[in-house]
């Protein structure tokens, strides 16, 4: 008796879901509906399973137990649960970063011959930040070894300070030191959270949140940043590139290989393998006109940014991509992989192949990726896909026609040239545009997709509201793919969606009003860009002075929680759509979202499900920062500015 409800604002996805329903293929949306209603104890964060004196539940209505069997209050329980989510998210990003560092180590030792240093300038810069001697003078191969060793060592460090945080403004560094928030080593912080949240350890929700922030910083300025930086060194630092996005990128007449997961050390090799003349010849022999690569999730973003490989879609589209019937192989590594992929692929000729020993599916073919034989393994996988092409069943194929063009490939480094030009690369023009009131500020709109909201409606709704008010938007992850699908990542979008001030800047530079910064580990690019904005001058002395804000309107994962926490701990307001699972503790919620945290670290959390209201919350914050910096009023006041002026009289 369920009514046919719209599940996505993307017509390609809606149509694909209709087809899946006709074929009785269950998708994440069906399973989400079947799971309703979902347990309120869980959503409120007041279910504790940490020991077997439990499981315990705090009655949020105040009549049943108000403490767990051990005596833990809702505050303690919700804080511990939140801390574990942070630890998991930090672990995921950091393990990714560790894998990249390990690959670089092998490369530098000559044991991974398929990789090389592709960006010497960034190698030397990163060497500098890691405190390596001879960063400017050493031979690149030698330096690569030193950088790899130093980066790898950050993970197992027991004492001291994570090095890359020295890129932050001095005021921010001093604050982190004063509050004891500077991580000592990546792994140590994650381990300590697991210890603190064990039965009978940390009972103080303040203390737990502080530890959570320190651990989160070990992700943003540690694991993720190492991932981004070393990937740029080995795979190339992205520059603006044209590409396409959405399910329509799948080809009727070519071998379709969809890469899904997160680590580009694998996906870049698949790209290279797909260009191999022998394999292309094999594809032709099998009746295909070539090999079409595309991706899902962050690994898609990585090869989109550097190679222009199209993205077939974001997190929620992983099943419907297979259900087009046109995918010869879906190759997965780690994170955001739905276990249902196996069942869906069995409805078609599609081969699901796992490549990471950390992410296996029962009964699914596993071809372990080994950096020492990277290209060989990649070719082996591509060959399997090609040989599967004749098995495609034409009667089952329906590829949605929707695709959209986008420009991706923006980084902290590129902004120098983009706005300052080749001869005088500088952040000055960006800062000037903000100070002059052409650009109100910068918003990072990032994060996942979730069937608990109308798919992509919150990303689009929020970004459009920000653009019409001259806020420059930077994006990563599934959010970027969402907005790309709706045409927001094209330079032309400035004329349709941006306010006059932002439009002028975009026109002058030739850039879109929404800048794709890459994958979710590339959220570290937002941090380093903020450092440059502060360093350039005129916008304050700390990241918390900048007129910027962050948001993840459709978040799903623990990684998103980790990112949100490190963004807050770095001094930037973070708005989530659905709240963190903490509302069962009034005190914890007030601490996270209130003035106390803002006084402590210069930023706080906010939860707002309506994307337009959330955008306005971010802009209120940005306007306050502008006022505190005594910046000029907006050059072209928007409707919102006029209304606010009228109200305040």
């Amino acid at each position, binding site marked *: 008796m369920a009514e046919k409800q719209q599940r996505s604002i993307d017509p390609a996805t809606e149509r694909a879901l209709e087809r899946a329903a006709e074929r009785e293929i269950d998708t994440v949306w069906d399973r989400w509906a079947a799971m309703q209603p*979902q347990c*309120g*104890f869980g959503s409120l964060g007041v279910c504790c399973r940490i020991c077997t004196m439990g499981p315990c539940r705090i*009655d*949020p*209505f105040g009549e049943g137990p108000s403490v767990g069997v051990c005596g833990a209050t809702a505050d303690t329980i919700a804080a511990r649960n939140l801390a574990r989510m942070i630890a998991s998210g930090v672990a995921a990003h950091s393990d990714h970063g560790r894998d990249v560092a390990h690959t670089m180590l092998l490369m530098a030792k000559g044991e991974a011959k398929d990789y090389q240093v592709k960006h010497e300038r960034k190698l030397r810069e990163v060497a500098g930040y890691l405190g390596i001697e001879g960063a400017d003078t050493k031979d690149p191969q030698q330096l690569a070894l030193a950088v790899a060793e130093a980066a790898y060592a950050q993970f197992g460090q027991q004492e001291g300070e994570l090095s890359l945080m020295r890129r932050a403004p001095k005021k921010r560094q001093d604050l982190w030191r004063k509050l004891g928030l500077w991580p000592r080593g990546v792994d140590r912080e994650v381990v300590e959270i697991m210890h603190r949240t064990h039965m009978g350890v940390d009972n103080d929700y303040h203390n737990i949140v502080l530890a959570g922030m320190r651990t989160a910083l070990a992700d943003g300025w540690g694991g993720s940043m190492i991932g981004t930086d070393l990937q740029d060194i080995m795979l190339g630092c992205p520059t603006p590139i044209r590409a396409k996005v959405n399910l329509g990128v799948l080809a009727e007449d070519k071998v379709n290989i969809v890469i899904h997961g997160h680590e580009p050390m694998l996906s870049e090799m698949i790209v290279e393998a797909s260009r191999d003349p022998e394999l292309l010849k094999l594809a032709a022999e099998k009746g295909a006109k070539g090999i079409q690569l595309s991706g899902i999730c962050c690994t898609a973003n990585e090869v989109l940014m550097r190679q222009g490989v199209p993205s077939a879609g974001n997190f929620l589209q992983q099943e419907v991509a297979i259900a087009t019937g046109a995918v010869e192989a879906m190759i997965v590594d780690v994170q955001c992989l739905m276990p249902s992929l196996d069942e869906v692929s069995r409805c078609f000729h599609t081969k699901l192949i796992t490549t990471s020993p950390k992410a296996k599916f029962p009964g699914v073919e596993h071809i372990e990726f080994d950096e020492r034989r990277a290209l060989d393994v990649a070719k082996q996988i591509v060959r399997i896909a090609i040989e599967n092409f004749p098995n495609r069943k034409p009667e089952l194929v329906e590829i949605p026609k929707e695709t959209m063009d986008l420009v991706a490939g923006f980084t902290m480094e590129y902004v120098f040239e983009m706005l300052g030009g080749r001869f005088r690369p500088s952040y000055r023009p960006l800062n000037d545009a903000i100070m002059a009131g052409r650009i109100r500020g910068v918003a990072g709109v990032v994060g996942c997709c979730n069937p608990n909201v109308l798919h992509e409606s919150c990303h689009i709704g929020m970004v459009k509201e920000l653009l019409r008010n001259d806020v420059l938007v930077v994006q990563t992850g599934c959010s970027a793919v969402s907005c790309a699908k709706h045409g927001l990542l094209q330079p032309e979008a400035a004329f349709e969606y941006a306010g006059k001030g932002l439009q002028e800047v975009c026109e002058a530079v030739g850039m879109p009003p929404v800048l794709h910064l890459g994958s979710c580990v590339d959220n570290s690019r937002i941090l380093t860009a903020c450092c440059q904005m502060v360093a350039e001058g005129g916008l304050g002395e700390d990241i918390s002075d900048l007129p910027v804000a962050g948001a993840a309107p459709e978040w799903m994962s623990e990684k998103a929680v980790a990112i949100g926490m490190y963004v807050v701990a770095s001094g930037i307001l973070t708005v989530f759509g659905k709240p963190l699972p903490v509302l069962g503790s009034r005190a914890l919620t007030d601490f996270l979202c209130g003035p106390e945290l803002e006084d402590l670290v210069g930023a706080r959390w906010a939860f707002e499900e309506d994307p337009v209201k959330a955008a306005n919350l971010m802009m209120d914050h940005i306007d306050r920062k502008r006022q505190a910096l005594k910046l000029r009023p907006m050059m072209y006041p928007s409707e919102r500015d006029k209304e606010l002026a009228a109200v305040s009289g």
Partner: protein
Amino acid sequence: MAKGDKRIFADDARCLACRACEIACSLRHSESGVLEQAIAERPPARSCVVVRLNKGKNSPVQCMQCARPKCVEVCEPGALRKDEETGLVVLDQSKCTGCGLCVEACPFDAIFLDDDRGVAYKCDLCGGQPACVAACPTGSLLFGTREEFRAREKVGSRE
């Protein structure tokens, strides 16, 4: 139901959809009565209460013990009847043919067909001490009279 008859009432505002009621009901109706064994029983023990989402509210649903039950009306073999004394709708599974007409007739989807056992099943109030009510961690479920239910303090919405 006559005034003074006791049945199960649910305060939707207090229901957090934890489904402790469903587990308790299955357990009470199992062979072993022990959770770790009950989950392995075949055919499985069934829950007579189900938590549904109804117009955006969590709604634990079990037999409403209607005054003029539709299920009784349609039951050919007479397995379902209204007890004059207690006012309860009583199901005698030994007379049930498993035709499923009661399932179609019930306006609340509160009576179910057990495909394994070939009979219908519904809430029997556990003989006077309903397991679901005892298990409910928020006190959403009450076993009492309508007056008692109405007299209970309404809970406001908690943020």
